């Protein structure tokens, strides 16, 4: 497996190269396009393949909602079970107070959603995984567009 890095100065050149790679039959999953700002390649019809990975279904929102539900559930358990266990007599407001606890439930619902969204985003974007230095070039930070092509055999024109 060898990774070739192709560096382009402008978006047009990069898109042209991607189209050529597609014509040569290179599989979309072998191509990674790196840039210093989002390129929104989905607007360029025939390079949809290169951007295909990013169009794969993301579950970030779904996981966020699930995180919210988990947070809310944990909050209900925390507030109700602990206040019952404290065993203190109260005058006036009862010790298990749903309206008051609802505030805590709301906040922990949001916290759960936030943390799970972050976690899922890191997971789906492949951050924190060990990426080899071969598949990155500092030129990205100079505004260039770097296309990494990972091929089983070597040999690529252009």
């Amino acid at each position, binding site marked *: 497996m060898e990774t070739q890095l192709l560096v382009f*100065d*402008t*978006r*047009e*050149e990069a898109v042209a190269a991607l189209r050529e790679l597609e014509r040569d039959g290179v599989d979309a999953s072998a191509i*990674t*396009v*790196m*840039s*210093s*700002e*989002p*390129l929104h*390649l989905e607007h360029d019809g025939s390079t949809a393949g*290169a*951007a295909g*990975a*990013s*169009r794969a279904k*993301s579950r*970030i*929102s779904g996981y*966020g909602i699930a995180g919210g539900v988990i947070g809310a559930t944990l909050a209900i358990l*925390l*507030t109700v079970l*602990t*206040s019952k*266990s*404290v065993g203190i007599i109260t005058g006036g*407001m009862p*010790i298990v*107070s749903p309206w*008051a*606890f609802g*505030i*805590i439930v*709301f*906040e*922990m619902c*949001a*916290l759960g*959603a*936030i*943390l799970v969204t*972050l976690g*899922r*985003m*890191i997971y789906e*974007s*492949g*951050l*924190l995984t*060990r*990426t080899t230095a071969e*598949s990155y070039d*500092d030129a*990205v*930070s*100079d*505004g260039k567009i770097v296309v990494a092509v990972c091929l089983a055999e070597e040999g690529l024109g252009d």
Partner: protein
Amino acid sequence: MSESRLTDSKINSDLLAPVNKPGRGWYATVTVSALVVAAALGALVYQFSNGLGVWGINRPVFWALDITNFVFWIGISHAGTLISAILRVTGAEWRRPVTRCAEAITVFALMIGALFPIIHLGKPQLFYWMVPYPSERGLWPNFRSPLMWDFFAINTYLLGSIIYLYLPLIPDLALLRDKSSGLFRRLYGALSLGWRGTQLQWDRLERAVRVMAVIIIPVAVSVHTIVSWDFAMTIRPMWHSTMFGPYFVAGAIFSGIAALILAMAVIRRVFRLEAYLRPVHFNNLGLLLLTMSLIWFYFTFSEYLTSWYGNAPEEMSVFRSKISGPYASMFWASVICCFVIPAPILAIKRLRTIKGCMIASALVVIGMWLERFLIIVPTLVQPRLTFNWGAYRPTWVEITLTAGTFGYFVLLYALFTRLFPIIAVWEYKEGLPLGEHGEPTVVDLTDAELERA
């Protein structure tokens, strides 16, 4: 507008200049603010050694400057959310150079505000008893207390804001990583989590930021509502008001935008970012500030009209102390600072310049601090049993601590601008239209077009 083209490298060097070459003004700012913070720390040590008696609080005024500062700074922290999150959610293009300024304000203002619930305690070393954990005493915290709601709300908002600041920072951290060497390269490298800028990563980042923006808006609204409920849940006259939730949120957004305008104006000047933070940004924020000033006036007027019309004796005594009594000068000063002077400045287009916005914002910050004080102290001075009416005067310790909060904010902000670009580089570039050769130009987009975007 000159015809200079902003190439990619020029944008990089302009926006990374504060990080790379801070300049003398930055060092002066850091030195002065660090000195102020040191003085405040000294006052704090003095307070911890001797007890809360070194403050001016007493019976019946058990809360004063401590809680004023708490509410004020939590209020300032609503800058980031409104600007960054709401403008992201509505897709307003002019937000791009402003978002990180705003998000940074939120994080630091929250950190400062969150200090006060700890340092105002009679036994600050036991603050952790408000953390829900299975304690050896067999006790959990009382979740019915609004102070516990504060604990959850502020911590959720703080964590959420840090994450919300951090996510769009990741690509810029990668940029800094690539431009640095040695220790900084490794630090930025670790913080950027191995970001490579693949289209998959961009897609997931933008998605996550959008989701975060949607979550953080209700959290922010809830935070200052809950802070207001520290007062509204009591049965004190002029505190026990159903309007406090929305009133405080509006006031928070109001003071937050003012703080943002001031921060942006300073940054623009000090870091020579005139090409990026343009009059249109100040114009739009100025219009938002005007809107919030009108909303603030509406709430304040409603609150006082209702009290006056109801004529309940226990409310009227507090009312009179603010309108014509001992607190009248502060009260009318706050009205003048929050509404009478800023509203015309911001409403008249000729006056709504960057300088005009700065003056209005500075007045609003002062006026809102006064307003927080006036919500808290006059009510406490006059308990229901009139034999117990008291008075309050701050001591040097409280004044030093208050000054220290401003110093600390400036210090943290200055350190932030030194470590990270204060304008989100990638987000700014993303908003520029592409020129002929794929290079972004700023000359194509006039202020009018930016306004329409």
